[in-house]
């Protein structure tokens, strides 16, 4: 096993809800700290205070990446700031071994009037690099950031993506033992994001990482363990990645998304069925892999539709479509008449990974003047897939393996 670089033991931090009270407590804490006595008010909540992080413990070894997930305000960033030594814990103990590189905000401390090159020196110095360190790495930094011709222009002329590239490039070239990342790769174009991930893969072998993100695919890609934060507490004691991701999703509210109804068509009902079981209002329909899923639709048409096309898209929890059903016209030809229209779609053996999915549906009319949307309902219905397979993409391909 590799050595433990980060260890957090029962770490807690409290904050105050109100600015004036907060400042008053600040002055009081200040005076107490001057006496050298332990701050008795530190371990208990005073009026208007709350625990932003409570009793969180974990260890990260070199080569591991801890994913830190949770909803907004669940204490992730506070925890990260404590690991970085910016905030002191009110309870507990944090031990950080080695040089810490933090990408809490890329390009913090950039001066807009100065050139990119000058800012590399400043930012590098802030991250603990000496001038000679920076000098020996500056070519690499510039090359990685892809800013060659702009590097001697003032940073105020840079686009936000360019600034991010420069910030990331400096931070990863500071040779950290520990890397703290706070949702920094949310910006930037796809090409650069991929480059960043490759760089992080490369760094991961040498560093202990803590990675905050709201993007579960990214977490699944990077993390070797997960801390799920909820109202300041860690709710995933096993640190297991798949379990953590499920817990994160389970805490979300899933409601049908945006409805678009043109006035020509309206959705009366959508129901899921499997064998004898059918979906009930207010409950998420659960399905296992061996079962056949049937979708019953009822649509009301206020006028006849000449060339109808009904389609379905399957979405994962990130609201990304991964599969669709578009063969309506193979089974149905001719116009739909005014009034109620019902149909049933049968899907055999959906080989999806366990998780929560939703179905978006729509109705088009193909006319001479073009395609008219008559109906579109985002995530009209949710269903849950049960099973013991674990994976971080939705589909399990049914395959046959051969071993010659």
């Amino acid at each position, binding site marked *: 096993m*590799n*050595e433990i*670089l980060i260890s957090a033991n029962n770490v807690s931090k409290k*904050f105050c809800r109100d600015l004036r009270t*907060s*400042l008053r*407590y*600040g*002055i009081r804490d*200040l005076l107490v*700290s*001057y*006496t*050298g*006595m*332990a*701050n008795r008010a*530190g371990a208990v909540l005073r009026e208007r205070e709350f625990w932003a992080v409570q009793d969180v413990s974990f260890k990260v070894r*070199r*080569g*591991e*990446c801890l994913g830190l997930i949770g909803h907004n305000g669940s204490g992730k960033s506070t925890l990260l700031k404590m690991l*970085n*030594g*910016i*905030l*002191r*814990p*009110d*309870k*507990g*103990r*944090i*031990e*950080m*071994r*080695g*040089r*810490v590189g*933090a990408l*809490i*905000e890329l390009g*913090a*401390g950039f*001066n807009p*009037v*100065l050139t990119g090159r*000058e800012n590399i*020196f*400043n930012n590098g*110095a*802030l*991250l*603990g690099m*000496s*001038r000679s360190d920076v000098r020996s790495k500056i070519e690499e930094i510039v090359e990685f950031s892809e800013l060659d011709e702009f590097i001697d222009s003032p940073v105020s002329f840079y686009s936000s993506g360019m600034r991010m590239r420069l910030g990331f490039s400096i931070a990863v070239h500071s040779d950290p*033992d520990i890397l703290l990342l706070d949702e920094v790769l949310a910006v930037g174009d796809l090409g650069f994001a991929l480059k960043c991930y490759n760089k992080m893969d490369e760094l*991961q*072998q040498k560093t202990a990482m803590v990675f905050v993100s709201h993007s579960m695919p990214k977490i699944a890609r990077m993390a*070797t363990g997960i801390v799920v934060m909820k109202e300041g507490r860690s709710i995933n004691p096993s640190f297991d990645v798949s379990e953590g991701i499920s817990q994160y999703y389970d805490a979300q509210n899933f409601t049908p998304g945006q409805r678009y109804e043109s006035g020509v068509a309206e959705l009366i009902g959508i129901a899921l069925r499997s064998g004898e079981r059918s979906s009930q209002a207010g409950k998420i329909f659960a399905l296992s892999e061996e079962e056949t899923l049937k979708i019953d639709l009822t649509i009301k048409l206020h006028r006849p539709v000449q060339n109808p096309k009904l389609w379905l898209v399957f979405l994962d929890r990130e609201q990304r479509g991964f599969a669709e059903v578009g063969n309506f016209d193979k089974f149905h030809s001719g116009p739909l008449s005014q009034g109620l229209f019902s149909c049933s779609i049968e899907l055999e053996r959906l080989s999806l990974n366990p998780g929560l999915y939703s179905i978006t549906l729509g109705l088009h009319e193909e006319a001479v003047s073009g395609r008219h949307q008559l109906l579109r309902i985002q995530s009209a219905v949710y269903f849950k897939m049960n099973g013991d397979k674990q994976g971080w993409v939705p589909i399990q391909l049914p395959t046959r393996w051969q071993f010659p």
Partner: protein
Amino acid sequence: MRHEAQFTYFCVSLASDAFNIQAALKTSIYTPDPLLRHPRKMLRDMLADLQMSRQLAFQLALRDIRSQYRQSLLGFFWMIALPLANALIWILLKNTGVISLADVEIPYALFALSGTLMWSVFTDATLSPITQMMNAKSILVKINFPAEAVILSGLYQTGFQAAIKILILFCAWQSYGIHFHWGWILFPLVVMALILVGTVLGLLLTPAGMLYSDIQKVLPLALQLLMFATPVVFAVPAEGFAARIFAWNPMTPLFLTGRHCLSGQSAGPLWASAMVCAIAVLLLLIVWVAFRLAKPIIVERIGA
């Protein structure tokens, strides 16, 4: 898990390296324990941080000086514009007879110019810690680096500006026919003493000043008042209430010594100045400790 393979590979290939790295790793421990409980460790940390800060402070000072003057046509002139204008006003007031001031031993223009320039060094030094910390607020809450670097960078900038002011004073003196003599070597030391006293005062007010903006607002006003209790644009009154205030003002001996160094007439109240410096050094150590204790609390309260 996905990384397991990488892991094993890594364990094998780096096992020997890992051992070496382990020995050299610096460990930081964060707990709620009061820092003053371990004075020896604190002192060690303070010196280590100061050591680490030097290069960073230089870099930050360079950044600030460059950016400040890059976006301006007159550039460095702005550094001395204010004290120069201040001196001019007083020279005009005196020469036109609007106000009457007691005569001074040296030409009044030199008296006023040296006074306002020295005063501006002092006010720069006083305002610098709090201004620098406020400007660094956004990085203080995002990057962990020794805050001493911010203070030190302000000190470097004040020092840089002071050097230019000293040169200007030398030129002014030269133009009145007083040439280089031993006192001019001593004069920069007096200016350093002014910076020292200013820094102590400024650093003392920084923790509270970062929490409550009132202090930043009232400070320039208070300094303005203090100027009239210091021999900046007029000489020390001979008697009365004002004389007592001047006598107690620690800045008085520094200004007197400074002027004497420039004119070379006599040594001035050297001993009193030395005393002021000694006390200031002691106080600096204390306010530095206070500042260190305050830093995490301030960062927490001004947060995000």
